């Protein structure tokens, strides 16, 4: 048995099981025969095991340096440290499709265990097996991770150096895929609901899935921002790169769905919106993958162009057509008839959903605008960060405004006591903004301070209200913590407000300075005094590192580096970032004297509040986890009304 044999066999088995599962699930639906459904369900763990075997085969090949596999020869070298070897399966296209397929079988397996009526269960399984057929089909044909080489090399080149340069890269792709794949389950439920014309219960049943997917997407995005900040060497965390955008869009749509789903659960409205959001969120994940794999749009994330582009395009179109086609078929039956009071919980949630979906639309338009212009006008244009920043600031501010007031509003129509809270909130907003202006911040940053204060007060009010309601009901005030959905969402809302404040300040007050220093020369900038003491070269086996020795007064010796990888003709920066609660100090070695090491060009970037972005990211993940914690389901899903 060789890894190649095990791998090819496992992929073929997974494909066969998925095809069989798809056929059985469809038969179960068409024939109404439960035996077929039972068979389809039994295939879910088998596909999971096959996919796992394929993944193990790839790890096996990597760990035993089996360079007869093309994937190993291209992405692995004898000098890779163990952790790099272990994460190499998602270092390139074929392996990442295998990881995707593996996670899909895992989700399908878990979804197949959930109790559901046989009609919808068979449709849900059919959709999920269909997705698996696509991924394992791609792996078995055009992008096999187990292709062998006739003349295996003695050593390979190793994975993309960007992957080796920071441990975050081990985490970020897995989290993103867990999020992407997670959206397939709500999509499958939505399709089943539209086919069987049972429009209500799927929302309740998939909220858990949607929340899991959302949590992973959020964590994945924050991990990606962190990686970008610490590896790419430009001191930023978000560049509105097409692929960042393509993964931001499903996040926005999933967020919209999480909020409109509450309305359908509570008041039975927004059915059509929920179908649309889930369909578009899922197909947006495929669109993002298509973008990275096809070379349609230039991006730092783009893999080498291969034959998978057309396959992903076809699958994206199929998933979109299926969702939208079904929705247009049932649109008459899911239309909302009631008119909502704009000053009610549902009014705020609908408006919020409009903001999220509008944001997604604008980001998509900006991303594809160059392609559209080239197609219709023949000109090359590019849409840069200024466009995205300009449109995102007001939309983000609108969302922050709604986020504070929305949860305080009662369903149906406003009550009197709401207005007292509202005045309090507006006072906090005005006070914060005024304080910001008095401290000399820009209008945007001052507004961010106001919005942060406003949202913090809103969270505090909601918390107090919940505790008071418990006390009035004769319960322990601590029992409010058992309302996991409420408490968790408050934590996430607070984290979003904190993240927004951090983004506003880090974008507004970034300080950058660069200087070429000679040996012994001192430089004082941004409150830091540093002296350049020379450069040092280190041979680290798989790479060559050059570090500049900077003696600083505040942080001791700081050593920013440049890494030279044999497979790249340009060095990768490895900045030294010193996080403090106020400012981040980002030391970057730009260039150095190659002959004698007499001078080095050093850049210092001082950015406020970046530290708090990572704190906010962790809080978001913790808040989501708190809601999802098993003990809370399903009792805590019900809210205790404060009135």
């Amino acid at each position, binding site marked *: 048995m060789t890894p190649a044999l095990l791998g090819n066999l496992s992929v073929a088995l997974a494909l066969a099981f998925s095809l069989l599962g798809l056929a059985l699930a469809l038969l179960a639906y068409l024939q109404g025969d439960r035996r077929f459904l039972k068979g389809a369900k039994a295939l879910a763990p088998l596909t999971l095991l096959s996919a796992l075997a394929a993944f193990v085969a790839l790890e096996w090949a990597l760990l035993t340096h089996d360079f007869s596999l093309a994937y190993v020869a291209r992405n692995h070298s004898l000098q890779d440290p163990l952790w790099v070897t272990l994460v190499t399966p998602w270092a390139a296209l074929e392996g990442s499709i295998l990881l995707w397929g593996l996670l899909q079988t895992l989700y399908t397996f878990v979804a197949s265990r959930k109790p559901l009526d046989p009609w919808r269960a068979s449709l849900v399984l059919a959709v999920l097996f269909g997705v698996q057929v696509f991924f394992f089909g791609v792996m078995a044909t055009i992008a096999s991770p187990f292709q062998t080489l006739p003349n295996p090399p003695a050593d390979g080149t190793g994975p993309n150096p960007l992957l080796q340069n920071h441990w975050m890269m081990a985490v970020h792709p897995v989290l993103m895929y867990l999020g992407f794949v997670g959206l397939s389950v709500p999509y499958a439920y939505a399709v089943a609901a539209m086919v069987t014309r049972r429009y209500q219960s799927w929302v309740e049943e998939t909220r858990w899935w949607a929340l899991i997917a959302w949590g992973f997407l959020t964590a994945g995005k924050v991990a990606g921002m962190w990686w970008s900040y610490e590896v*790419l*060497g*430009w001191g*930023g965390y978000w*560049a509105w790169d097409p692929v960042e955008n393509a993964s931001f869009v499903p996040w926005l749509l999933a967020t919209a769905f999480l909020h409109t789903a509450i309305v359908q659960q509570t008041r039975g409205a927004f059915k059509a919106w929920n179908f649309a959001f889930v369909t578009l969120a899922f197909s947006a994940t495929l669109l993002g993958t*298509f973008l990275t794999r*096809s*070379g*349609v*749009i*230039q991006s730092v994330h783009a893999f080498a162009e291969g034959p998978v*582009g*057309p396959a992903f*395009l076809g699958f*994206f*179109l199929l998933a*979109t*057509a299926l969702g*939208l*086609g079904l*929705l*247009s*078929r049932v*649109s008459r039956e899911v239309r909302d008839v009631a008119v909502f009071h704009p000053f009610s919980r549902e009014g705020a949630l609908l408006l919020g959903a409009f903001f999220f979906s509008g944001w997604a639309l604008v980001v998509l338009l900006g991303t*594809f605008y160059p*392609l*559209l212009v*080239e*197609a219709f006008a023949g000109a*090359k244009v590019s849409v840069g*960060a200024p466009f995205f920043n300009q449109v995102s600031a007001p939309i983000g501010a609108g969302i922050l405004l709604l986020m504070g007031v929305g949860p305080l509003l009662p369903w149906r129509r406003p009550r009197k006591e709401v207005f007292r809270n509202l005045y309090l909130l507006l006072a906090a907003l005005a006070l914060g903004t005024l304080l910001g202006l008095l401290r000399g911040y820009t209008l945007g940053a001052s507004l961010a301070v106001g919005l942060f204060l406003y949202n913090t007060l809103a969270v505090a009010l909601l918390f107090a209200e919940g505790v008071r309601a418990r006390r009035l009901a004769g319960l322990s005030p601590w029992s409010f913590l058992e309302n996991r959905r409420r408490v968790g969402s408050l934590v996430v809302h607070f984290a979003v407000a904190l993240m927004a404040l951090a983004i506003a300040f880090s974008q507004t007050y970034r300080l950058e300075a660069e200087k*070429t220093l*000679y040996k012994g020369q001192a430089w004082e900038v941004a409150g830091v005094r540093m002296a350049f003491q020379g450069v040092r070269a280190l041979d680290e086996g798989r790479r060559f590192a050059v570090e500049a020795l900077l003696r600083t007064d505040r942080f001791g010796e700081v050593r920013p580096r440049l890494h030279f990888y044999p497979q790249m*003709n*340009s*060095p990768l920066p490895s900045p030294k970032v010193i996080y403090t609660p106020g400012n981040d100090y980002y030391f970057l070695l*730009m*260039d150095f*004297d*190659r002959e004698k090491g007499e*001078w080095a*060009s050093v850049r210092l970037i001082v950015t406020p509040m970046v530290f708090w972005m990572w704190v906010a990211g962790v809080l978001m993940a913790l808040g989501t986890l708190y809601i999802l914690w098993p003990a809370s389901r399903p009792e805590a899903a019900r809210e205790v009304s404060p009135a």
Partner: protein
Amino acid sequence: VKGWLWVLVVAFLAGIFWWGMQRNPKELPSVLAKERRPAPDFTLPLLPPYRAAWGETFRLGDYLGKRPIVLNFWASWCYPACYEEAPVLEGRLGGKAQGPGCSSWGGENTQGQGARRAPAVHRPSFGPPPSPQVFGTPEGRGGGWTTGM
């Protein structure tokens, strides 16, 4: 009609992306060459080895309109290829530059977010496509460009 709207949407997406896959996004025609626009002026600090000959900073405007100029853009990380390419390009241009009013020097431009770096003299460029060499007329009108060696 409304029921078929989604078909139009899907068909449109199919068309535009299919068309998009047929072309090379890395292909970039030179705007300067096409529109014959004058080169934008800039002032940048020079790297230490060139300060003796050229002063602390370099301003393009000071040299425009006098003689043909070769501007050479490349990224700061382009080592050692760009360094080693220097003598080759200089030899090529330098031979012709013996006549009156010809000089050549290198500039550099990193690809990253707004990271403009100091230009350096006599260090021509080599690298992946967006590090072009721009050739221009004395008035600074772009004449053409080439990439690589």
